[in-house]
């Protein structure tokens, strides 16, 4: 049972037709999430991580659409599901947390009512039941004085409190999967720390599986068991956080890890990845990372570079065909010192 993934995204493709051409925002992304697990989806801006998350729920911005691929949630394909079916799933079995609580929350509705909306709509609870549920959730997510705060409007709350409200809304129907899109990016580091700790506690208490989209590798290190690294619309490396962070097998992952200003290491010149992410209207042929890759060789310039499993059944995979160069590089100079 534990081996059947709760979410299985297979070869997902999302196109956004624009006047200057079609943007292949997600271009054959695949990853799986086992029940109870937290998966970090990381990459630079424009790598397609948020689009992937939105595609799962059928919340793509116009005119974006899924062109092919499957999104299997508990075995059911959401990519081809009807709008009505998606509405049943959203908020009930799958909860969502967005980056900007101020734009994601309804500004003219009291937060208590917003939390109670889910139980009212999906669980068939009465008003008083739903209200009691809202207060209970507010207490659980650490909002002081929930009786009074439930009457507040979003603008009356601080950024951290608003994000707590978002979490309460996401958890209101006891979803089995929670999708978080940069939930702490807009917050201060102290508040981010509070929210991350809260999410960890909620995962434990509710046994919910989580997909965590972020650009911050350290946040992934602290919250997720598994990680999928995205570049130019594709997943280029997956595995457990432990494996991927300590022994990356894709030059992009390695470059990202090396460019993070490290809090725990003394001052030194930072490594960086030269160049910029490719234009997704016309991505480079061959491996999409080759124009920026310091290990690129001739055979990187043409052909397809699908995820290649490393060891059967481990879920560890890389799209790089010269991944041994990363291994050699890391053995010379570890990414994380106390390996």
């Amino acid at each position, binding site marked *: 049972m534990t081996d059947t993934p709760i979410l299985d995204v297979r070869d997902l493709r999302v196109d956004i037709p624009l006047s200057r051409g079609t943007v292949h925002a997600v271009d054959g992304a695949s990853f799986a999430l086992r029940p109870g697990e937290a998966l970090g989806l990381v990459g*630079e*801006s424009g790598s397609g991580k948020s689009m992937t998350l939105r595609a799962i729920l059928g919340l793509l911005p116009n005119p974006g659409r899924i062109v092919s691929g499957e999104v299997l949630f508990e075995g059911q394909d959401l990519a081809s599901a009807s709008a009505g079916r998606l509405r049943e799933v959203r908020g009930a079995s799958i909860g969502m947390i967005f980056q900007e609580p101020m734009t994601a929350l309804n500004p003219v509705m009291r937060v208590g009512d917003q939390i109670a909306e889910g139980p009212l709509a999906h669980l068939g609870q009465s008003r008083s039941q739903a209200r009691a549920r809202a207060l209970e959730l507010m207490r659980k997510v650490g909002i002081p004085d929930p009786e009074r705060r439930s009457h507040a409007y979003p603008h009356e709350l*601080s950024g*951290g*409190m608003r994000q707590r409200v978002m979490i309460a809304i996401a958890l209101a129907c006891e979803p089995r999967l929670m999708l978080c899109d940069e939930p702490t990016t807009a917050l*201060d*580091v*102290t*508040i*981010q*720390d*509070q929210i*991350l*700790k*809260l999410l*960890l*506690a909620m995962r434990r208490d509710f046994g919910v599986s989580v997909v965590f989209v972020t*650009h*911050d*590798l*350290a*946040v992934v*290190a*602290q919250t997720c068991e598994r990680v999928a690294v995205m570049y130019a619309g594709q997943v280029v490396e997956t595995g457990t*956080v*432990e494996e991927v*962070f*300590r022994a990356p097998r894709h030059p992009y992952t390695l*470059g*990202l*890890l090396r*460019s*993070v*200003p*490290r*809090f*725990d*290491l*003394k*001052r*030194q*010149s*930072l*490594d*960086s*990845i*030269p160049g*910029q992410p490719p234009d997704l209207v016309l991505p480079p042929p061959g491996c999409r990372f080759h124009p920026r890759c310091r290990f690129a060789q001739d055979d990187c310039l043409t052909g397809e570079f699908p995820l290649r499993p490393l060891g059967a059944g481990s879920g560890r995979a890389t799209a790089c065909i010269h991944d041994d160069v990363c291994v050699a590089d890391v053995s010379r*100079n*570890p990414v*994380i*010192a*106390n390996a």
Partner: protein
Amino acid sequence: MPEAPLLEVRDMRMQFVLSDSMLRRARRVTPEVLRAVDGVDLQIARGEALGLVGESGCGKSTLGRCIVGLYEPTGGEIRYEGEQLPVRRSRSQRRRMQMVFQDPYSSLNPRMTVRQVLSELLRVHNMVPRKAVDERCRELIDLVGLGPRALDAHPRNFSGGQRQRVSIARALALEPELLVADEPVSALDVSVQATVLNLLDDLRSKLGLTMLFIAHNMAVVRHVCDRVAVMYLGRIVETAPTEELFSNPRHPYTQGLLKAVPRLVPGHQSEAAAMEGDPPSPINVPSGCRFHTRCPIAQEVCHTDDPTLAANGGPHLAACHFAWTTAPPAHVPEVIAEAEAADASADPA
């Protein structure tokens, strides 16, 4: 101190009056006052890179803007090379302090090419003879690592990192002595962040710049700065040389800030949050020590007495009643100790 600091700020205050109106005045309702900067003393030595960190709303950007003269402070004084700067600064006084802003998307004029931006500055300030303006533009754009073709492009043609390079070139056009960089990399992706940070570091050694580096990311500050000042609700609560601050933080706020930074090393996590609660509003600053509402070691005295920045016979200052009397409290991040151990093991490599 062997030499007078390049810049000295004494008891600076910046208040913004909110919700004042004729009606309120007629009713004798006292206007609400937001005390963004509330008595800051700060010195920056020539050639130094000083980091200014704190949560959003602590007044760090306001302080930076007061220093370069974008705001007129409501109190205190700014001394530059020992001389007090007047409220209306002369052109040459303005020239010597320049600023790089956080958002490279809104801080460049979208209708001007890079050449127009740079040459306007060079002409207005008579930086070089008219005939040499073009040559100087090329030098500047080369200095920040962009090719000469960039000169005829508009900001919209650049990525975020490139725009930030243009902003830096603009600041450097006036050959400033002090560069105030207000969160110059927080709008950028990590891989690009690194290149801009390295550029700032190079420029600093190449041009002998003095820098005030405003940031909320402690890791970034550790990479760039010689000394760090921690700000909380309009006040500096701790300042020390960078390594000293990171290895031996004495103010409970600094300790909490450091503990809250997520680490790249997988799996280090304590259950409890590093710091509870939200920062109080700068409209309603708590009595006594302004941190006491969130402080894990607050005592009776902290509710009534406002601690001043005090040293322990060195360059390390902290504004806490217990900074130097008690051993660092038990909650001082064990992670820091571990990181130090990791440092030690990484050093020979």
